[in-house]
């Protein structure tokens, strides 16, 4: 049933231009990060690793949480408009499954975004003529980034479900990213969903270290907590269709 709901969610997103944001926006940090890398070759001597540090600079903290926030807000916007709550809540499917389909789709977008960021990183490295072998850890960085992204999606889906407007949850996504920066600086990064994205991508982490077990545990716990809370809200709150 989850698969059928997922198919329905994909159908809802057909012809939606939101994918364009995911395609175009990651190009900015890639181009600017590469430019910054070329401008500081004297200081940045670790080739691929230095280039990665420039690509992930700012983007994982300010930009990806808000971008994932746009997608999650988009998903609930479909239900908030055109009386769609009525058909959504009367579908012969449990609300848990309906919510699960949205979360899986958002997780898929997080993974695709990381894949695109990886492609742009490799292209930039080749264009600037890096000769060292491609870091074998790259898929792990991207995968961990995607896992951190799923925790962000959980939080953003919850916010966009509760707040029946498009803009405020996206702004809260940016605020979450900034708060993630502060929380990480205080050493509590593993306990905050918005920090998990940059920790997973090893942003601002020259040693490229990650404690995998607490990271995965925290991401799973945050995603599960947000999902359970969202489903509880869906089950208990009366819908107000517009």
């Amino acid at each position, binding site marked *: 049933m989850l698969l059928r709901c997922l198919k329905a969610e994909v159908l809802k997103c057909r012809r939606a231009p939101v994918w364009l944001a995911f395609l175009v926006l990651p190009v900015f*940090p890639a181009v600017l990060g590469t430019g910054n890398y070329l401008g500081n070759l004297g200081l940045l001597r670790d080739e691929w690793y230095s280039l990665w540090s420039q690509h992930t600079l700012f983007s994982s903290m300010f930009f990806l949480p808000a971008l994932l926030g746009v997608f999650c807000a988009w998903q609930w*916007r479909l239900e908030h408009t055109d009386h769609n709550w009525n058909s959504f809540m009367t579908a012969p499917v449990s609300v848990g499954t309906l919510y699960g389909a949205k979360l899986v789709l958002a997780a898929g977008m997080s993974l695709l975004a990381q894949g695109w960021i990886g492609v742009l990183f490799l292209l930039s490295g080749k264009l600037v003529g890096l000769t060292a072998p491609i870091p074998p850890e790259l898929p792990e960085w991207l995968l961990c980034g995607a896992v951190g992204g799923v925790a962000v999606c959980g939080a953003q889906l919850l916010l966009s479900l509760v707040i029946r407007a*498009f*803009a*405020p949850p996206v702004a809260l996504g940016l*605020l979450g990213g900034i*708060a993630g920066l*502060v929380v990480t600086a205080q050493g509590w990064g593993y306990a905050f969903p918005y920090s998990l994205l940059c920790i997973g991508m090893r942003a601002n982490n020259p040693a490229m270290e990650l404690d995998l077990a607490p990271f995965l545990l925290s991401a799973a716990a945050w995603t599960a907590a947000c999902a359970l809370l969202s489903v509880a809200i869906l089950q208990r709150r009366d819908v107000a269709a517009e």
Partner: protein
Amino acid sequence: MKLLRLEFFKCRRRKIALLCLAVLAVEAVWIVTSLTRQDAEDLRQGWMLLLYNLAMVDAIVMPLSVAVIASRNCELEHKGTTLKLLETMASPGALYAAKLAWGAVVLAALLLLRGAVFAGVGVLWQFPGEVPWVRFGLFTLIFWVVSMMVYALQQGLSLRFANQAAALVCGITGSFLGILSMLFPPALTRCVPWGYYGLLCLVRMDWNPETRFTWFFWRWPEPADLALLCLWAAVFLTVGRALFVKKEV
């Protein structure tokens, strides 16, 4: 004036004040956190450090915040399909101007309050010297004009597209380019509308890579940059207004 009053009525329960307070709270937490990490030597130039950090935080926070404020004010017309009714009573140009004036008042209130809060932070932190009121006032005025330029762009987008994703994605791009443009050469920064937060800052930083010593100094904005800012604002205003006026409701 009546239309402007109506805009305030429309936004009664849209939690605009809460939104502005959230923006202020984020900026305050950020600035205070960064100040706690400075030693006494750094705080000798406290007022300059404060305004420099404020410009940097604004470059990140304000583009998306302005996008959200504009979206909150324009989204309601799409949701209620009210434009068809409104345009039977007032011209689209007057409606557009009223919305812009509403944004100007809200942003002015936000930035004035922000200026007062951070002047208070400086006094409480006991930064050396008097409060530089004139520079604080000028800083607030310039950042209000930059925010209005961004607001004109965002209002145009929020009114043109019923789906607010377009306006919000533009806001996110602005936040990202706003901070990154502080690393650009000035010629390139002038081509980025959100880069004017950094470009028109009244404080510049000089960092010596050998001694690793950071030094701040006052500067006045270039008249050419101010003229370019007005040009950007005029372009966004003209295009946004023309798109709204010609739009079939």
